[in-house]
């Protein structure tokens, strides 16, 4: 019964002794069609599920064009400030507090490096504010990795900030 029965049997043309051509069976085997159907279903199912891209939402601080740049972002308490400097060659430097009396340390993007530092810091200071400053040698992956670490370590206050000459001077010394 794996067939579609379309033959017209029955007593429609009963009675008269007309000669009828022998009817070939019109049953079609539907198995290959079902196979094909499911093959395509599988294909479409897989393509739909995997093609939706994931995104990371980012809110940049609103640029106040009237205020001079030096005065922006300066209203964070020194005790809460934590700065990441993304340098080239997948290196990260971090320090707490202000740049003037900073003691920068070097690490990388591995779980043992940056994540550990962030976890320790956020444990000590729960409402830490992380400024992410990328140098010109850094690449997009570094930025995403740094932002990703914020998600992983559940730090909710962070911003992408332009790097200052002081910061550049600081990491040059190392």
């Amino acid at each position, binding site marked *: 019964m794996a067939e579609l029965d379309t033959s017209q049997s029955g007593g429609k043309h009963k009675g008269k002794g007309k000669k009828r051509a022998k009817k070939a069976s019109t049953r079609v085997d*539907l198995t290959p069609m079902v196979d094909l159907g499911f093959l395509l279903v599988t294909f479409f199912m897989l393509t739909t599920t995997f093609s*939706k*891209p*994931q995104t990371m939402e980012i809110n940049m601080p609103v*640029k106040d064009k009237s205020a001079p740049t030096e005065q922006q972002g300066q209203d964070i308490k020194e005790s809460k400030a934590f700065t990441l400097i993304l340098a080239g060659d997948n290196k990260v430097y971090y320090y707490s507090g202000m740049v003037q009396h900073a003691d920068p340390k070097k690490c990388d993007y591995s779980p043992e490096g940056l994540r550990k530092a962030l976890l320790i810091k956020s444990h000590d200071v729960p409402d830490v504010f992380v400024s992410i400053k990328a140098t010109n040698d850094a690449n997009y992956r570094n930025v995403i990795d740094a932002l990703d670490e914020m998600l*992983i370590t559940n730090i909710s206050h962070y911003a992408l900030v332009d790097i200052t000459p002081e910061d550049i001077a600081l990491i040059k010394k190392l």
Partner: protein
Amino acid sequence: MPKVKIPRKSTTVDMTAMCDVAFLLLTFFMLTTQFKSDDPVVVDLPKSIAVIKLPDTDIMTVTMTKEGRVLYGIDGKFNRERLIQKISEKYNIQFTEEEVRNFSLTSSFGVPISQLKNFLSLNPADRQAEVNNPGIPIDSANNELGVWVMQGRLSNPKFRIAIRGDGKVPYPVVKKVINTLQDKNVNKFNLITNLEAKPIETVVQKKQ
């Protein structure tokens, strides 16, 4: 002893119902699938644990390639038509109907506006070629990406902006793109990433 004969039943099953189901599902998936847009560039997205899904519609994409070229794309045929009309008014370039249609079929492009007319007269395969997509100027003197973003938002204010960048894009390019967006008062945007498993370690630490 007489053998007990078990009557044999036919093992063939009626496939009609199954066939119906298969094709019903097939139709459903065919109608709901959105194929990956054929972008003229290959972008190796960085990984992140972010799980927010990108909305399907009303999206403007800024693509950055690893050489630092910037491409712009807008979603929807009608939006593209409206956008090119705006650009044509702003720059006083007359586009033929053919060029408007070609533009409405281009998912993403990277040409300066001065070369746009030329670009649209190419055939679809050539429009995908790298040579023909030198990138949209993002210098402060001639920031055409800003113009595109601005006009795109004017043609449909609901638009969200997504940045799709290769992991190797140098940071100055990223900074220029972000600054451009901020200049146009776009302070909220999405960065498209690939999914990566969330490390278990932090979950453990949270519990302690």
